[in-house]
């Protein structure tokens, strides 16, 4: 066996071992990635309807007064403008405190776009700027939103905001613009990279679980199968992607 033959044999062996190793390990690595969020989506590859992104919020773990999710959302999405009237500012996620009128029992929870299966905002949008991605994430196309605010009138959760003033210092991955309506995107730019939404990552209590509702083995599906959960305003039959536990 000549030196060059030996070299090519070694290269072949190494490649084969690496190949087998990759084949053996990849599903495991893939599963680990999925258990966190999802596999990263290659640029140009369309979102798949096989996935339905959802979120489960455990209100028993969510502390009143804690707004780590709100802060993380604002930082991640470049929501940093100051407004004299808070009602004119963007609130992609807000904390709501509840007190049962009869029993006095209290709850605290974050309210955000509920990423409905049948989103009223998408129904009413005159231009189609409000849209639902194949994987269930409800978004606004900034290029064709005309700022009519009909979606804000239609949203049962008050989850949408109009940008009331010109913006600076934006996050390049999260385009925003004056005169357009916006809302929580489930941090779509992170989810597409296989990461978790910023709020989920920031929650100190681990009260938020994000994942694929269509995958029976995902952490969120397993939790939903075991624990009782509700949808806010379930009477509207919108089949939201965001579910709450403990209320």
């Amino acid at each position: 066996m000549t030196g060059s033959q030996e070299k090519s044999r070694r290269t072949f062996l190494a490649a084969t071992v690496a190949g087998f190793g990759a084949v053996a390990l990849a599903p495991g690595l893939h599963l680990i990635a999925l258990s966190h969020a999802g596999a990263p989506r290659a640029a140009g590859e369309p979102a798949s309807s096989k996935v339905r992104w959802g979120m489960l919020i455990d209100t028993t773990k969510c502390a009143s007064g804690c707004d780590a999710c709100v802060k993380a959302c604002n930082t991640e999405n470049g929501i940093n403008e100051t407004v004299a009237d808070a009602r004119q500012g963007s609130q992609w996620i807000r904390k709501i405190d509840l007190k049962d009128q009869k029993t006095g029992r209290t709850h605290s929870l974050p309210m955000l776009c509920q990423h409905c299966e049948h989103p009223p905002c998408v129904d009413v949008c005159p231009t189609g700027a409000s849209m639902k991605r194949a994987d269930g994430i409800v978004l606004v196309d900034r290029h064709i939103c005309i700022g009519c605010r009909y979606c804000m009138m239609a949203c049962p959760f008050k989850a949408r905001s109009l940008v009331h003033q010109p913006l600076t210092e934006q996050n390049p991955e999260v385009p925003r613009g004056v005169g357009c309506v916006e809302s929580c995107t489930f941090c779509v730019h992170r989810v597409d990279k296989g990461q978790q939404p910023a709020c989920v990552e920031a929650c100190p209590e681990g009260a938020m679980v994000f994942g694929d509702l269509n995958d029976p083995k995902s952490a969120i599906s397993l939790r939903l199968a075991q624990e009782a959960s509700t949808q806010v305003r379930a009477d509207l039959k919108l089949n939201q992607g965001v579910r709450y536990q403990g209320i």
Partner: protein
Amino acid sequence: MAFAQNPRAEERMFYLLVALGGLVTAAGLGAALYMEHAGHVVTGMNNQIVWGLPHVFAIFLIVAASGVLNVASIGSVFGKAVYKPRAPLSGLLALTMLAGGLAVIMLDLGRADRLIVAMTHFNPTSVFGWNVILYPGFFAIVGLYLWTLMDRAMNPYAKPAGIAAFLWRLILTTGTGSIFGFLVARQAYQSAVIAPMFIILSFCWGLAVFLIVQKVMYAWNGLELDMRIRNRLKNLLGVFVAAAAYFVAVYHLTNLYFAKEMAFERFILLEGGLFPFLFWGGYVFLGTLLPLILLYVPAISRVRGSAFLASLLVILGAFAFLYVFIIGGQVFPLDLFPGYEVTSSFMDGKIDSYAPRWPEILLAVSGLGMTFLFVTIGVRIFKFLPQDDLAKLEGSGALHD
């Protein structure tokens, strides 16, 4: 104020009115430019009170625009001779009011510069989307209808054009009402009765506008409307006022009895400060009861000017009604968690308030300014003054049926 003997004074007055309408319009356009440049932060509107004063004015103009066409429809579609000479003015008012209302809505958009996007991207499930077709269609059909009315060669086509315009306007107002009727999220809206309620309100407001414009035009020309014709028109207005009040009552009863929106109704009808005041004082008393007295109590209704005053009051009531309906509906919090007391950083569980600021006030009023400007110029250039051939009407018995 008859100018028949003094054409120079008449001309001066015309230019003064054009200047007035132009000034109000220009102020509104300036305000819109400012809002476009600085963003909606300069208005009193926000993420809770999403639609404000511009929408109150625009929706009045759009609803009344379709209603004012009713005068023409009664002549062309239902063959009532008294209404036929009034059809051209009715058509002109319909077009100009719709133009004024739409201009305000478009200029209030967050991205008013994207008008072309609105016209080239169409979502068939959106009631707003339907309106993108319904409004231009209304312009086209009413424009055609006006042509058949005003060009003798086209007269034979007036009836089919009138029928088309009548049907189109019914669909159009159904669309305007359904903008609110299909909003399932909010206690104030989400009701199928809103579309027919808007149709009857449009009959009422449109006829009131027509009577005011007609009265002013007659006075300008030193004429007086024949009492018998005037009585027919004022009786019709009375019927519309009463019918509208019936629908408004049904709408509130539906909310109370069927949808159990007790808290909202208590707010809007009893405890909501400005809103119950505007509803009972503005819409019910000034806009409904007083006009009915002015129109139907014989000793009062015979007095010249009573129908004119009733019409003015109906319009005042219309604005009160729309303010309560649009602003009051948004001031009241959404009920996301029934049975819970709710607090948050974003007005959850709290009753909000709305204070319009000057940019949106100027923009809102400019809708009226634009309509006024177009009508003033229109009635001077073309023959829109309703002229009655009384002998012919009497001979045919049209004044007695």
